[in-house]
C-alpha cells in the first residue's frame, strides 16, 4: 500500500513485516525513530511474538542479538556512527560466529569532531568485519532491502547491515509502497538456524580456535560472501517477481551505455547525481552513473563490466580513508585491474555537507576536460583550511582546530548551504 511517510518508519514497518522475534534498541541519532517505531508496534500489540528489549549500550544491543540469534530467534537491531564503533567487537563476533542478524545503519559521520549528519564513515569503518553491506538509494529501497536482508542472512548464515543515509533518507518524508504480510511471508520463510542452542542436542558455540584451524574458519566466511555475489541478484529478481519492483541487486547503471565519463556513487547521493547526469546529457555531455548497492561483497566483475568502456571514472565518495584517500575508489580500482582509463576520486559530503547539483555539474565538466586531480575534495573551503594552517604556524598553542574553524566560519544558521 502506498503511503507518504518518514523513511525511518518505512524501515520499521518493513522490519515488522519480517516477523522479527527479538529486537534490541539503544538510541542514537539518526536511527532512533526506527527502533521507537518498532517499540511502539510491540507495545501496542501490532507486532506480536516479538521481544523488544531496551539495552544499556550499543555493545549490549548487538550482544543481545547475538544471544537471541544463537538461540534460534530472528533478531534485529539498528545503530549508527559512534554506536557501531562501540559495538565493533560484537560486529566481528557476529560475523565470525555466522549469526544471521540484520542491522540498520543510519549512516552518520564518526567523531571527533562530533557530528550527527550524514556520511558513510560508519559503515566503512566496519567494512572488513565480514558483514554483508547493502546501501539504499531511496526510502523505498531502504524498506525493501530489509526484507531481502533477512532472507539473505538466514540463507547464508551471515549477518547483513542495511545502510540508510541519516537524515537525508531516515528523516525524509517520501512515498513508499509498504508490502502486505502475505507478500512478505511468501518471500521470507521462518528462520531455520544452521546452529542453535538446544538442550535436546547440545553444542558449544564460540570456542577458541588456534593456528591449526582459524585460517579455514575465516576463509569460509570469505567464501560466504562469494556465494552472496550470486545470491544477491537472484534474491533481487525473486523480489521483483513477488513485489513488482526493482530493488537491491549488486549494482545499477544509469545512462552508461555510451558514456565517456561514468560516476560511481552509493546511497541517496545517486538520486542527485542522476538529475545532474540528465542535465549534463541535455547539454551534450556523455555521462552516466553506476550505483553500487552491494558494497560487501564488492561486485568486482560487475563493476568492471560497467566501467570498462568508459574513458574516465569519477568515484564520488562520502567517506575518507585518512592518510590515503578514497575507500570505494580502492574497490573500483581493483575491479579495473589491467584496464587503462582515467580514474578520479572525489570526496564529498563529509559530516553532512550538502552535495548540490550545481557543484556536481561543475565537477562533471572539469572531469570531462580531465582537469581533476587524482584526489579531489568537493566544496571544501580551502580559505578556511589555509587560515587554520597559518594559525598553527604562528603559535604552538593554537587551540583546538574545530573550535578555531567554527569561530572562523561564523554563524552557519544564516546560510542555506
Amino acid at each position, binding site marked *: 500500500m502506498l503511503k507518504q511517510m518518514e523513511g525511518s518508519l518505512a524501515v520499521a514497518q518493513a522490519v515488522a513485516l519480517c516477523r522479527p*522475534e*527479538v529486537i*534490541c534498541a539503544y538510541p542514537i541519532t539518526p536511527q532512533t525513530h526506527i527502533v521507537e517505531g518498532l517499540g511502539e508496534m510491540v507495545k501496542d500489540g501490532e507486532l506480536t*511474538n*516479538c*521481544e523488544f*528489549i*531496551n*539495552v*544499556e*549500550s550499543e*555493545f*549490549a544491543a548487538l*550482544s*543481545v*542479538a*547475538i*544471544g*537471541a*540469534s*544463537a*538461540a*534460534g*530467534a530472528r*533478531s534485529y537491531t539498528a545503530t549508527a556512527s559512534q554506536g557501531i564503533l562501540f559495538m565493533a*567487537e*560484537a560486529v566481528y*563476533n557476529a560475523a565470525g*560466529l555466522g549469526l544471521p542478524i540484520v542491522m540498520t545503519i543510519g549512516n552518520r559521520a564518526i567523531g571527533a569532531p562530533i557530528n550527527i549528519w550524514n556520511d558513510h564513515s560508519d559503515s566503512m569503518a566496519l567494512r572488513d568485519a565480514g558483514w554483508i553491506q547493502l546501501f539504499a538509494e531511496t526510502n523505498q529501497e531502504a524498506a525493501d532491502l530489509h526484507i531481502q536482508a533477512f532472507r539473505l542472512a538466514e540463507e547464508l548464515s551471515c549477518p547483513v547491515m542495511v545502510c540508510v543515509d541519516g537524515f537525508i533518507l531516515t528523516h525524509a518524508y517520501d512515498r513508499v509502497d509498504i508490502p502486505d504480510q502475505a507478500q512478505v511471508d511468501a518471500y521470507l520463510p521462518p528462520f531455520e538456524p544452521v546452529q542453535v*542452542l*538446544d*538442550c535436546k542436542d*547440545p*553444542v*558449544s*558455540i*564460540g*570456542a*577458541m*580456535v*588456534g593456528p*591449526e*584451524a582459524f585460517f579455514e574458519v575465516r576463509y569460509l566466511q570469505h567464501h560466504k560472501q562469494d556465494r552472496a555475489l550470486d545470491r544477491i541478484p537472484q534474491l533481487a529478481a525473486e523480489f521483483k517477481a513477488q513485489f513488482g519492483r526493482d530493488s537491491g541487486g549488486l549494482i545499477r547503471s544509469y545512462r552508461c551505455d555510451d558514456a565517456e565519463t561514468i560516476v560511481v556513487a552509493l546511497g541517496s547521493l545517486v538520486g542527485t547525481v542522476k538529475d545532474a547526469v540528465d542535465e549534463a546529457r541535455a547539454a551534450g555531455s556523455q555521462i552516466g552513473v553506476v550505483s553500487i548497492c552491494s558494497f560487501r561483497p564488492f561486485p568486482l566483475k560487475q563493476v568492471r563490466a560497467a566501467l570498462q568502456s568508459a574513458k574516465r571514472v569519477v568515484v564520488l565518495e562520502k567517506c575518507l580513508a585518512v592518510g590515503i584517500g578514497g575507500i570505494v575508489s580502492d574497490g573500483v580500482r581493483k575491479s579495473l585491474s589491467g584496464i587503462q582509463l582515467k580514474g578520479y576520486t572525489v570526496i564529498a559530503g563529509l559530516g553532512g555537507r550538502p552535495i548540490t547539483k550545481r557543484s556536481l555539474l561543475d565537477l562533471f565538466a572539469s572531469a570531462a576536460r580531465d582537469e581533476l586531480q587524482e584526489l579531489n575534495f568537493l566544496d571544501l573551503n580551502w580559505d578556511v583550511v589555509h587560515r587554520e594552517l597559518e594559525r598553527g604556524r604562528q603559535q604552538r598553542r593554537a587551540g583546538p582546530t574545530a573550535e578555531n574553524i567554527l569561530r572562523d566560519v561564523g554563524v552557519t544558521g544564516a546560510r542555506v548551504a
Partner: protein
Amino acid sequence: MAFQPVKFYQTGTFTVGNRLLADSERTVQANMRRTNSLNSGHRACQGCGEALGARYAIDAAMQATGNQVMAVNATGCLEVFSTPYPETSWQIPWMHSLFGNAAAVASGVAAALRVKGRSSVKVIAQGGDGGTTDIGFGCLSGMFERNDDVLYICYDNEAYMNTGVQRSSATPPAARTATTMAVGPHPGNVFGTGKNLPLIAMAHHIPYVATASVANLHDLEVKVMRAMGIEGARYIHIHVPCPLGWG
C-alpha cells in the same frame, strides 16, 4: 536441606558429601548420576578452583531444572580451558561471545526462549571476576536493571588469571599481581580500591543475590538450586582459588 556447620575438613568435601550424610542429604556431586555438565578432559590447571566451581554450580542447576540449562560464558580461563578446539567439555548447550558481554548475550538467549515459548529452559551466564566486575560491568548492570531471567555466576579468583595474573577490581588490597607488584613504598594492590559486586547486585534490587565458596559444596549447591527456582535476574558470587595465581 539444612546447612551443615562443619568445624573443619580433614579429607575434603567429596568425603563429606559421601560418607558423613544420609543418602537424601548428599550433594549433587556425590550422586553417580550427576550430569557432569563440565566433563573431564578440559585443560584447566591442576587444582583449578574455577573448574570445580563451574561443575558444582552447573550440575546443581541441572538437577534443579530437570536438565534444562543453557550457559553463556565470558572470555576467560573457564571458556578457554573448557573448549580447546576441536573439543568441548560441555555437555550442555553453551556459547561464548566476547569478554564483556556475557550478561547481554544471556539476556538475548533468555528473550529468544521466551518468545519461542520455551521459558522452562534456564539461562546461566558465567564469567570470572575480570569479566564481571570490570569489562562486563555495564552489561551486567543492564541485565540486572531489566530483571532479565538470567542467573549470572561470577567465579572470583581475584585477578585476570588467564592473561597472566593482572589486577582486577576484585583483587584484595596488598595482593601481589603482575600489575601491582610487591615493590616500592606501597607494595601490592592499592588499599581503598575495589568493588563489592554482591552489594552492587543488591543495590539493583534483583530477586536473589548470594555469595559462596568452592570450599563449601553443600552451601554452594543449595544456593544455586535456590536461585534456579526464582525468576528474574539473579547473581551468585563464588570465591574460587587459583593455584597458579595465588601460589
